[in-house]
């Protein structure tokens, strides 16, 4: 099998970068397994409890980049109680003890402490890149450690984390000699920012490509920052209100004109709508625009901005854009690949401005569209069928009709046929979220047609266990299944336990699954961790009472090669 020396094979492997492909390579033969494991640079661990640090280091002793994900996806919607788990500390401790030359750490939905960040900053001389997404547990003191100690840091990217802002001087902890910054994103920090330190940092960072500011950076500071960094590619504007003078706005306009490399724009948390015109000169080059936090901008200002953005590939927007606004997007943004429309009125006041018409318009106007997340008040089967015809290339299709169980608003029928059309037409669909009134029928369609589906989110849908069974039996590539408030129970859960070894995880909350059913599953499948999350009924859910017929509120199960985790809090029972 091997006609070449190992070095040559390793060199060939260098061109194989996707995790899936590298995993496949390592299964070919023992020799390739060995070569691959010593040469793998980037390790991706989708569930931090599927493996442990020791096993990681034994298999891959030479990696430079580690990606770890902790809590399940529904944690984003507060369905996972505080303290559940996902602690990064043991990982950093183990890596620090080893000889791994860690350069990049990417964490999602994990608990990170200041202690972890301090240890990280001191343990890896060549550490270059820290990306934290939806994490919690740390403060700006931890950031200060990173700034002080990581001499070769290039990226500090904080996305949507809960950070305790001590309003300290973390920005001034970057030494004066430090000039290697490429990415700085602190948009999620709540507190004040040391503007002087920030300006000096930006001024001495010639390689800075991505800068995302927080609310506390006002307009005049923005103008000065952009003047220092005309090479910027990705900009997150902070607070866009100006209380001082119009001179700042003119300076900003002048600075923006010089930013000819600008491709991505976001922020505008508190925005003066008519100041957007300052950005019109760079709009024609923008490929990514995120205005989904800019609740103040809507109507004509928004449309005027978008009309200039002919090269847009990614657009995140609020539903205040309205169907008419989406029609403008459809006729202007012919390169659009990804669209997300978020709800403005989270209180259910019924003022949402996008309907099925907006979705249809986008599908008709944007031939390259492959990913969509769409929150709306109403939908029809007819619209979804049209969308499916217009856009058979969807990879990700997430539709959220705000009112649970809402039927087709014209025919009052369930939306089975509409979603059925989507899965039948979109042969490459990898991710799907369904909503509205749905019977078991929609799951029959999903099981039948969604052959490439890897992630499915179900809420308030289905009639019987058959629904869940259609999905488990049909979707061979399913990796993550998350279900809430749907009438699926033990029969579906237990029908094929081996299926779960082919999946990363299953989440079921407010369904019909019982304690007895979970225990039976755990006995049949020792390679699974079957977690029952029980925050409200600490005492009531007795293990030995009621013959296990009690309903389980939250079930989270996942395959693992390292058995029961030892860091579970008391309200999590693992079988």
């Amino acid at each position, binding site marked *: 099998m091997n006609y070449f020396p190992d070095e040559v094979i390793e060199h060939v492997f260098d061109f194989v970068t996707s995790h899936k492909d590298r995993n496949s390579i390592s299964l070919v033969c023992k020799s390739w397994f060995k070569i691959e494991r010593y040469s793998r640079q980037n390790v991706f661990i989708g569930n931090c409890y599927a493996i442990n640090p020791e096993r990681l280091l034994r298999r891959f002793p030479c990696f430079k980049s580690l990606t770890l994900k902790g809590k399940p996806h*529904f944690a*984003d*919607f*507060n*369905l*996972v*109680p*505080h*303290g559940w788990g996902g602690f990064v500390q043991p990982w950093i401790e183990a890596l620090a003890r080893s000889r791994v030359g860690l350069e990049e750490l990417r964490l999602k939905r994990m608990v990170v402490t200041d202690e972890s960040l301090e240890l990280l900053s001191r343990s890896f001389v060549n550490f270059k890149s820290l990306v934290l997404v*939806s994490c*919690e547990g740390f403060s700006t003191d931890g950031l200060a450690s990173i700034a002080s100690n990581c001499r070769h840091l290039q990226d500090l990217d904080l996305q*949507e*984390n*809960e950070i305790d802002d001590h309003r300290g001087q973390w920005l001034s902890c970057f030494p004066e000699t430090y000039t290697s910054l490429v990415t700085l994103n602190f948009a*999620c920090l709540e507190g004040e920012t040391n503007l002087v330190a920030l300006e000096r940092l930006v001024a001495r960072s010639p390689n800075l490509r991505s800068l995302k500011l927080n609310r506390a950076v006002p*307009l005049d500071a923005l103008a000065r920052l952009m003047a220092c960094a005309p090479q910027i590619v990705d900009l997150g504007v902070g607070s866009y*209100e*100006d*209380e*001082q*003078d*119009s001179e*700042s*706005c*003119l300076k900003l306009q002048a600075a923006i004109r010089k930013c000819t490399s600008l491709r991505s724009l976001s922020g505008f*948390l*508190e925005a*003066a*709508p*008519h*100041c957007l*015109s*300052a950005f019109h000169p760079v709009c024609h080059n923008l490929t990514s625009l995120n205005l*989904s*936090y800019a*609740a*103040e901008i809507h109507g004509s200002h928004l449309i005027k901005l978008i009309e200039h953005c002919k090269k847009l590939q990614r657009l995140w927007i609020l539903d205040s854009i309205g169907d008419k606004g989406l029609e403008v997007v459809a006729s202007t943004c012919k390169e659009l690949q990804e669209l997300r429309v*978020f*709800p*403005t009125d*989270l*209180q*259910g*006041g*019924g*003022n949402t401005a996008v309907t099925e018409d907006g979705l249809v318009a986008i599908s008709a106007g944007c031939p390259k569209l492959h990913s969509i997340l769409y*929150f709306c008040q109403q939908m029809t089967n007819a619209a979804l069928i049209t969308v499916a015809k217009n856009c058979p290339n969807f990879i990700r299709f997430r539709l*959220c009709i*705000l*009112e*649970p*169980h809402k039927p087709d608003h014209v025919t009052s029928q369930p939306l089975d046929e509409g979603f059925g059309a989507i899965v039948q037409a979109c042969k490459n669909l990898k991710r799907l*979220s369904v909503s509205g009134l749905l019977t078991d029928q929609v799951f029959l369609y999903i099981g039948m047609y969604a052959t490439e589906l890897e992630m499915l*989110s179900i*809420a308030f849908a289905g009639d019987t266990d058959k629904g869940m069974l259609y999905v488990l039996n049909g979707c061979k590539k399913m990796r993550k299944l998350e279900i*809430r*408030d749907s009438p699926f129970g033990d029969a579906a859960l237990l029908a094929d336990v081996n299926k779960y070894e082919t999946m990363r995880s299953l989440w079921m909350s407010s369904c019909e699954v019982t304690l007895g059913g979970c225990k039976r599953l755990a006995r049949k499948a020792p390679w699974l961790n079957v977690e029952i999350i029980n*925050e*409200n009924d600490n005492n009531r859910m007795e293990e030995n009472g009621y013959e296990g017929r009690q309903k389980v509120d939250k079930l989270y199960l996942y395959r693992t090669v390292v058995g029961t985790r030892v860091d579970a809090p008391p309200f999590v029972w693992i079988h």
Partner: protein
Amino acid sequence: MEKGGLGLEITELRLGLPGTEKMMKKRGFTEMIMTSSGSNSDQCESGVVSSGGDVEKVNESPVAKSQVVGWPPVCSYRWKNSCKEVSTTKVGLGYVKVSMDGVPYLRKMDLGSSQGYDDLAFALDKLFSFHGIGVALKDGDNCEYVTIYEDKDGDWMLAGDVPWGMFIESCKRLRIMKRSDATGFGLQPRGADE
């Protein structure tokens, strides 16, 4: 300007315009998400409009959709930011944003610190260092600019028509607009709500 001479009922602090049965459909967030997750205690109570003391919560029945934990599936970071936006454009007393046509920046002013329309006129003059705004408020047809405001329902109204108390209750933001632009703007005509 109509000040006084009106029965107390007209200036009663209520949700919705006088003479209408409109009720705000907003709900309280108290049953929402941030329960024993303990992640944060400053819950999003902004579904409730506080009008100088009395907190009115309208809890309509349909399957208490906003009382379902974790629904709609919007990540908690986004919830918090959306609530922040609601609280900065607080309806009623407090800061409102003021924009003026042709001026590329916004101002914020505290309506609660003005005693009436005269005061407001003076404050606006100072804010934009432009005389004539005050004139616009008082002497409608003689001025190049008109002062309009956006009310709780998102409608734009001419400032000065309703009693001061009602005005500061419902004003969400102010805009000083060129008279010539105002005609095509879709302002609610005077007396529409009488």
